[in-house]
C-alpha cells in the first residue's frame, strides 16, 4: 500500500510534533518543571512514528521510553505527556509513574516498565489474546540494541515463535545502550541475525527514513495479521542525545554524531517533501506554527494543573 500524499504530510507533522514536544520538555526540564529524568528520541522520530503509523484500529502497542512518537500516533495527547512528566494528578498515571510509563487498554496502549525486554513476552501475550479471539490485529513493541541482550527478549521471542502469535517487534539499533557502544554488546554486524535464530521473519530498515519504516512496518504487520506469526524489524538509527538529559553523551565520538546529524529524519524528510512538492515552505511553516501555538496552551495548562492529593497514595493497589 503506497503512502499517499496526505499521509506523507501527516507523517511529517507527527515527527515534527514528536520533536517539538520533547523540545518543550527539555525547556521545562531545565526550568525544573519536569520531575525526574527526561529521555529524548532525537534522531529516532522516524522509527517511532513510522512503526506506529502502520497500525490499525484494534492493534496494540507497547511503547518504550523513547517512543513518544508512537504514542502520539496512537492518540496520546501532548497534554497527557506534559502532565505525566510533571507528575501531575490529571496525568495518565495520576502521578504514580513517570515519563512514558503509561497505558490505556481502551486505546490499545500497554505501559512499559523500566526493566528492558519484559514487555516483549507481555506483548506476545497480547498477541496470544488476539489470536484466541480470532481478531486479526497485531501487538507491536520496541526494544533497543541494549535491551536485546536481556533474557526477556529471548523468552519473549521464543514464546511468540512457539505460540505463533502476531507480535511485531521493532529493534531500534541506535548505536548505544547508555554509554556502551554496540561493539561492546555484540560481535555480529547487526541484530537482524537474532530473528533467524527463532525462525522469525525479519527485515532491516533505515530507521531514519520514515517512508521506509512505514512500508516495512506495514508489510510486517500485514504478515503478522495474515499468518498469526511474529515479525521482527531492525531499524538502524542513532541516539542523537545522551541517555537522558543529564548525560552529555561525551563518550560518543564527534565523528559519529556528525555522520548521523546529516541523516536527521525530519530535516531530510522536509527537504524531500519540499522537493517533491508534497509540501510548500508555507505549509511547513504553518505546521510548525500550529504545533507551537498548540503546545503553548498545553504547557500552560499542564503547569497550572495540580499535583496529586497525598491522601490518594494508598488507592488502587488492588483492582
Amino acid at each position, binding site marked *: 500500500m503506497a503512502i499517499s500524499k496526505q499521509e506523507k504530510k501527516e507523517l511529517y507533522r507527527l515527527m515534527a510534533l514528536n520533536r517539538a514536544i520533547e523540545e518543550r520538555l527539555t525547556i521545562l526540564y531545565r526550568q525544573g518543571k519536569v520531575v525526574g529524568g527526561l529521555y529524548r528520541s532525537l534522531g529516532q522520530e522516524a522509527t517511532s512514528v513510522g512503526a506506529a503509523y502502520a497500525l490499525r484500529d484494534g492493534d496494540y502497542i507497547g511503547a518504550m521510553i523513547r517512543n513518544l512518537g508512537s504514542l502520539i500516533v496512537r492518540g496520546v495527547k501532548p497534554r497527557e505527556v506534559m502532565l505525566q512528566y510533571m507528575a501531575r494528578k490529571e496525568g495518565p498515571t495520576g502521578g504514580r509513574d513517570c515519563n512514558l510509563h503509561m497505558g490505556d487498554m481502551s486505546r490499545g496502549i500497554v505501559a512499559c516498565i523500566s526493566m528492558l525486554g*519484559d514487555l516483549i513476552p507481555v506483548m506476545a501475550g497480547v498477541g496470544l489474546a488476539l489470536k484466541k479471539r480470532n481478531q486479526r490485529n497485531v501487538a507491536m513493541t520496541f526494544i533497543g540494541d541494549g535491551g536485546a541482550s536481556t533474557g526477556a527478549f529471548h523468552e519473549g521471542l521464543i514464546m511468540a515463535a512457539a*505460540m505463533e502469535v502476531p507480535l511485531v517487534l521493532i529493534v531500534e539499533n541506535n548505536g548505544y545502550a547508555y554509554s556502551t557502544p554496540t561493539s561492546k554488546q555484540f560481535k555480529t554486524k547487526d541484530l537482524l541475525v537474532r530473528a533467524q535464530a527463532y525462525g522469525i521473519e525479519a527485515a532491516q530498515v533505515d530507521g531514519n527514513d520514515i517512508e521506509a519504516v512505514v512500508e516495512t512496518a506495514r508489510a510486517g504487520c500485514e504478515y503478522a495479521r495474515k499468518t498469526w506469526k511474529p515479525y521482527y524489524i531492525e531499524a538502524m538509527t542513532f541516539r542523537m542525545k545522551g541517555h537522558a538529559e543529564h548525560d552529555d553523551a561525551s563518550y560518543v565520538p564527534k565523528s559519529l554524531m556528525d555522520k548521523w546529524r546529516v541523516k536527521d529524519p525530519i530535516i531530510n524528510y522536509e527537504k524531500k517533501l519540499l522537493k517533491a512538492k508534497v509540501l510548500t515552505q508555507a505549509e511547513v511553516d504553518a505546521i510548525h506554527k500550529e504545533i507551537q501555538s498548540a503546545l503553548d496552551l498545553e504547557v500552560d495548562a499542564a503547569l497550572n494543573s495540580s499535583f496529586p492529593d497525598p491522601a490518594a497514595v494508598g488507592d488502587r493497589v488492588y483492582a
Partner: protein
Amino acid sequence: MPVMTYLEAIKDGIRHEMRRDPNVFVIGEDVGGYGGAFKVTQGLIDEFGEDRVMDTPLAETGFVGAAIGAAYMGFRPVVEMQFIDFIACAFNQITNMAAKSHYRWGQQCPLVIRGPSGGGVSGGPYHSQSPESYFVHTAGLKVVMPATAADAKGLIIASIRDNNPVIYLEHKFLYRRVKDDVPGGEFVVPLGKARLAREGRHISVITWGAMVHTALDAAGQLEKDGVSLEIIDLRSLVPWDKEMVLASVKKTGKVIVLHEAPHTGGFGGEVSSYITEHAFSWLDGPVRRISALDTPAPYSPPLEQAYLPQAHDIVRVSRELAAF
C-alpha cells in the same frame, strides 16, 4: 459431598472455572497431554483442547509474561510452575510487571500463578521451597496457601475470579495425602477469611499450608497434658484475617506462629509483630515463632526432618508457653 484428594480438588476448581468462563486458560510446561509433573491438570486438555491447556517452551519469564499480556486483554490465565522454586526465574515479571500494573496505570491483571511448593519429599534445595515471604512483601499480589482439599478447591476458584495477580501455593506433600469432603460444583472460599482448624483454650497457633496438619498432630499430643491448642489456618496471607487472629489471641493470651519457610524474614515475623502491636495488653507471654531453619532445604531425610518444623517442636514450645 464427594471426597477428593487435595490434588483432585485443585483440578476440580480449575475445571469448574474453565467451564464457567471461556477466558480462563491453563499455561505452563507439560500441562497438556502430560497433565503436569504432578498431574494436577491431567485430563483438562481432553475437555478443553490445546488452546486452553497450553504447553510452553521452558521459559518462565516468557510464559508468565505472555499470561500477563493475555490478562491485560481480559483473559484469566492459570499459570503452572512445574515446581514453585522456578518462580524465581519469573520474579521480575511477577513483582514488577504484574503486581504493579493496577497501581501504576489502572490496568487489572487477573492471573493465577500456582505450583507445587513445600518440602517433606526429599526434593532438595530446588524442589522444596516455600517462597511465600518473597511475595507477601510485594504490594499488588495476593498470596494463597490451602491446607485442605475443600480449601484447595474453594480458594483456587476465588483466586481465578480475583482481578489481581494471585500466587497460589499448593503443597506437594498434601497432594495425595490429604483427602476430605469437597463440595461439588460452585464453591468459593473467599480470600482473606481464615479457618478455625481446631478450637482450643490455651494457646493460639497461627499457621498455613502443610503446617496446619503438623499443628493438629501436636495438638493431639498436647491434649493429654491438658494443654489445648487453638489452630487457625490463615488460608491466604495477602490478605490475611487479622480479625480472627486477634479474637483468638485475646481469648488465649498465648500465641505460636508456625510456618514451613525459613525463619529470618518469614511471614511469621509479620504476623507476630502485628499481634504484638494490636493485642499487647492481652498477651500473657511473647508471641513465639516456629519455622524451618535458616538454611537451604536439605535433601537427605535426616537433614530435611531437622530443617522442617516438627510436631515435637510445637509440643516443646507450647509447654514453654503454657508455663510462662
